[in-house]
Structure formats: structure tokens, C-alpha cells
């Protein structure tokens, strides 16, 4: 469900929750469009999250209690801001650590350091 300019969707699958939670850790509250734009900016358009992937994930995070929402009425429409909960704070730490460890393992497994040196 990603439109990824550089990466295959298989590669990033499973990291979307971590990306969203980590963004919410750094920003007090964010809404959907803002999250997609932020990811786009931060990655220089390398990762573009689609709406079709973002909203199901946000709803799942809300259901799990990692985020809560705050509704703001803008004219005739409602904007939902997502805010990290205390539980979410712990989840984000766990997830980021897990991903970092995974990346380290992958580096070792794929022997990336030496191949980079070879280049």
C-alpha cells in the first residue's frame, strides 16, 4: 500500500507503525496529511506514505491505546490530531530499539560494511 519512489513495499512493510509513532514522539500532535508531508520532506521524497496505508495504521494504533485523538472542527470538516500516550511512548522506544537492532543484524548478515568498502 505504499507508493515508494525508492523502496519496495515489502521492504518498508512493518516499519510504518514505527515511523508514525516516532514522528508523534517528536511532534506533540499531528494529523494525517501532516504526517505524510513530514515523512516526504524528511526523506527527500524517498518514502511517500499512501493514505490507504496510513489511516488503517492510525486506527489500529488508536485501538491499541498507543495514541489518542483530538478532534478539531475546521468549517464543515473534522480534523483528527493524533497524540502519543504514555503507553505509546514505551511502544516507540521498544519499536525503535528493535528496528535498530534488526538493521545492525542485517548489516552484518548482508556484509554491508565490507561491500561498501569494496566500492
Amino acid at each position, binding site marked *: *500500500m505504499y*507508493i515508494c519512489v525508492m523502496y519496495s513495499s515489502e521492504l518498508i512493510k512493518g516499519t510504518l507503525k514505527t515511523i508514525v509513532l516516532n514522528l508523534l514522539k517528536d511532534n506533540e500532535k499531528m*494529523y*494525517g*496529511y501532516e504526517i505524510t508531508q513530514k515523512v516526504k520532506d524528511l526523506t527527500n521524497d524517498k518514502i511517500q506514505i*499512501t*493514505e*490507504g*496505508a496510513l*489511516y*488503517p*495504521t*492510525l*486506527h*489500529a494504533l488508536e*485501538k*491499541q491505546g498507543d495514541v489518542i485523538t483530538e*478532534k478539531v472542527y*475546521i*468549517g*464543515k*470538516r*473534522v*480534523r*483528527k490530531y493524533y497524540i502519543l500516550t504514555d503507553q505509546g511512548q514505551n511502544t516507540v522506544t521498544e519499536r525503535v530499539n528493535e528496528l535498530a537492532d534488526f538493521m545492525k543484524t542485517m548489516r552484518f548478515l548482508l556484509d554491508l560494511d565490507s561491500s561498501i568498502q569494496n566500492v
Partner: protein
Amino acid sequence: MYSITDEQVDFIHNDITRRGVITEDVRDNILDHVCCIIEYEMTAEKDFYEFYENTIARFYRKELREIEDETRDLITFKYYYAMKRTLKITGATSGLLILVGSVFKVLHLPGAGVALVLGLALFSLVFLPLNAVLKFRDEKGEKNRLLLSIGMLIMAVACIGILFKIMHWPFANILIQGSIIAFIVFYVPTYFFTRLRNPETKFNGSINTIFMIAVCGMLFALTNNKYSTHIADNLSDVDVYLDKQVDHLHTENAETVRLVNDADLIKLHKETEALYGLIENTKANLIAKAEGISTQEALKFQGSLSNPFSNDIVLNHFVKAGGEFSYTSLSGAVDNYNKQTANDSIRPLDIADLRLRESLLSILIHDLTQMQLQILIEESSAMAKHSH
């Protein structure tokens, strides 16, 4: 920055709804997101509707409601594994319990009932419905999903029926036969025709259909299985023989009283006749109600009852009834008989000899005849004593 109008917001809201996004939270999110994109990315000279169409197309692969479906799936996903685990555990447990219960039942060992009730209840109330839910989720194609889930639910009802049957609880036949009929009428034809259309499933589908029809037929025939006609006729013969004995003794006693012409015996005969007559009429009343015939016809009734195991008739027309042919009336008559014959060294009658707890029609009639036999024997032995 483009400024979006209220009419345009309404238009987007209605369009999203029309595309099948009905959950309010999801709809609000998409609406705000689309509005943001339009406000930030659309320039004044562009056509709103065209821009909107291009924007909304970015949200999905086939249709917009994918987002809603995906949301629902993600939310229920974490229950999925728990459900599968429960399915495995309840499946294994219920299978084991049913197996143990049925073996115990055959061997008449204690605990069979408990094991069967637990096993079959778990099987039909947890395992099968859970299976239906999971199949509904996993199966591809709307028709297959519905078909499988409905099949599972019908099976669950049939299993409950079988449990009721094994435990001798009421409504077992209705449950079993009802579910078999539903299965044959709705499930089997739908199954057969959906499989028939696809060349790949045609052969297996036909074979499975035959299996289902055969099993349903056998089960249907088994549900109402009672004693064989052979046994039923033999049981009825026992009663016919008893009736003959009673009739014979009744005529003999009457003849003896006429010949002996003794005041004490005539008094005893009067009491015996009164009670004998009441019991005879009570029996006739029960038969009349059970067979739907007149009391006159019932007095001459021969042969076996159409429903010898009915207890409704016993309850409604004897135990709980009032009037001449009720339990209360008979009980009064027995008391009166005992009182009147107390000096005649007659063995008193006990109304408790009637086995009312089981309250089956044929048993009650049999017991009433036994009562008649007892009073006639007492009368006969009094006559024998008198002649000595």
C-alpha cells in the same frame, strides 16, 4: 493556497460515502486529507472536480472502501491468532470429550453424561461458530463464505440436537430434523450448483453432494427410531393378555356372587364393581383423549396405542386434571374402597402403586389394569374363604 468552499466539502463528503466509506472516523480522516491536498496543492486556475478525481484516485488500488476494509482487518487482526488458538484448543478438547463420553456411555461407566454434555456443547457452541467466523474471513468469494458459514451453523444446531437426544432432553427431534431439512433444502442445492458451474470442482462437488444427502438421510431415519414393530407388538400382546385375564376374572366373580348370594359378598362385590367401573372408565377416557375417539369406542379399543409414550395425555387428562376421571377422583375412590372393605380382611389398595413419575400413557394404563386385577383377586379370594 486554495480556499475550499462548504459546497465542495459537502460534495467530497457525499462522494466518499457513495464510494462505500461509511465508518465516521475513517470518513472524517479521508475528507480532511483530501481537503488538505486540495488546499495545499491545487492552484486557482485548475478545475476542482478534475483535481478531486485525480486526488482521490491516489488513495486506493481498486476502490476507496479498501481503506475501510483494511482498517477493520487491522483492528480485528490481533484477535485472529487468539481465535485460531481457541479453535485448536476447543477442537481437541471437545473431540476428546465426545470420544471418551461415547465410549463410557456404551460401557455404562459413570461420567459419560458429563463428558458428552461438555464435549458436544463446546463443539457446537464454541468450535463450530468460531470456525464459521474464521471461514467467513478466510474464504474467497462472497458466495463461498456465506455458504460455509451457514453450513457450520446448521451443523452446530444439529449437534445440539444430537446432544439433547443422547441426554433424553425435550425438543431433540425438532432440532435434529429441523437442521437436516434446512441443510437439505438450502445448503445442499446451493453447494451443488455453485460447484457444478466450475469444471474444476464439478466432480468432487457432485460426490460430496451424494455423501451429504446419504448421511442426512441416514441421520433423519435414525432420529425417530423407536422400538421395532416386533417389540411394540409383543409389549401390546402382554397388555392384551392381562386384559383378558381381568375380563375373565370379572365375569367369574360376578357369576359366583350370583350363585352364593351372601350379604357380605354382595356388599364387597358392590364396592369392587364401583372401583372397577371407575378404573375402566378412567382408562377409556385416557384412550379416547389419546386416540381422538369417543369414550364408547375407547371402551372397546383393542390393539396398540398410536403414541404409547405420550406423557402430555397423562399430565393433562389425569394427573393435573379435575373431574370424574382424574387422579384426585380415583384417589378418593380408592380411599373409599379401602374404608368400606376394611373389615373384610382385604389387602388395601395403594394409590402410590401408580407410577406417575414416569407418567407414560401405556405404563399408566397397564398399572390401572393391575389395580383392577388386584381388587378382583381380593374379591375372588374372599369368595374362596367364604365357601370353606
